[in-house]
């Protein structure tokens, strides 16, 4: 089965992920809403803030074992999306830093997975899984944690706009 649309499949997945992360900007979880979710521009017109999420993606990796034969064949890709959670509390903040990180990450996990068959991203992906978190090693500047998520999807060899399930 193939589905043709006018937005590349990987961009549609990014938009779904971005929309789900937006839930963290409301009082969707706990009492510490995220101030904003940013997909950065090339020139970086944003400024680091406490309780902020930056969404970026790595170059896609081929997953040949999940390709489908055919004419044209379906190619399987895995794209890693980096959900960078910035926690930059005030110097007068008395809450433990790790507690703030734990709440923020809990909100991220809940917002992304709180959907039926969450891992299919509205039917666009084959699979999705959380990867190891990466602590940001900071030297007084931006600090926080990165929660990568690997999303696997399949498209036509001839067009990144054609979803192959």
């Amino acid at each position, binding site marked *: 089965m193939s589905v043709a649309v006018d937005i590349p499949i990987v961009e549609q997945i990014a938009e779904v992920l971005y929309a789900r992360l937006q839930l963290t900007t409301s009082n969707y979880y706990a009492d510490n809403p995220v101030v904003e979710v940013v997909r950065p521009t090339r*020139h970086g017109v944003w*400024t680091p803030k406490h309780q902020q999420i930056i969404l970026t993606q790595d170059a896609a990796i081929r997953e040949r074992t999940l390709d489908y034969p055919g004419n044209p064949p379906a190619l399987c890709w895995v794209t890693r999306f*980096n959900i960078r959670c910035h926690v930059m509390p005030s110097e007068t903040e008395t809450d433990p830093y790790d507690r703030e990180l734990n709440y923020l990450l809990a909100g991220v996990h809940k917002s992304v997975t709180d959907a039926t068959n969450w891992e299919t991203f509205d039917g666009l992906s084959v699979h999705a899984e959380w990867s190891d978190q990466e602590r940001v090693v900071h030297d007084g*500047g931006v600090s926080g944690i990165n929660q990568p998520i690997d999303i696997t999807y399949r498209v036509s060899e001839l067009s990144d706009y054609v979803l192959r399930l």
Partner: protein
Amino acid sequence: MTLRDAILDDATMLVSQNEFGELIEYNGREIEAIVFRESLSVLAEDGDTVLPSWEIHVANSSTLGISSTELDVGSDVLVFPPREGQDPEEKTIVRLVGHDHGMLILECR
């Protein structure tokens, strides 16, 4: 006048609009500062994101600049034109690069 007073006087003169400084905003008040406008650079902490940086020099004073005791890194912002001639924008102070009795050197991203 003590040497400490002289150092603060020198710093205040250096960041004056009549010398190298310009007016920027901190916590709702206007202060004089020297703004070193930097080019794009990778945000090392995030690895794959690019973000301009600015180095700001201000007098270590709660009236003429920002005092080292009132500064709250991570929470405080400065408002200034990111590029000469542009409209002012809010930028977070992410790092206290250095300071002494006369001056603070801040990094904004």
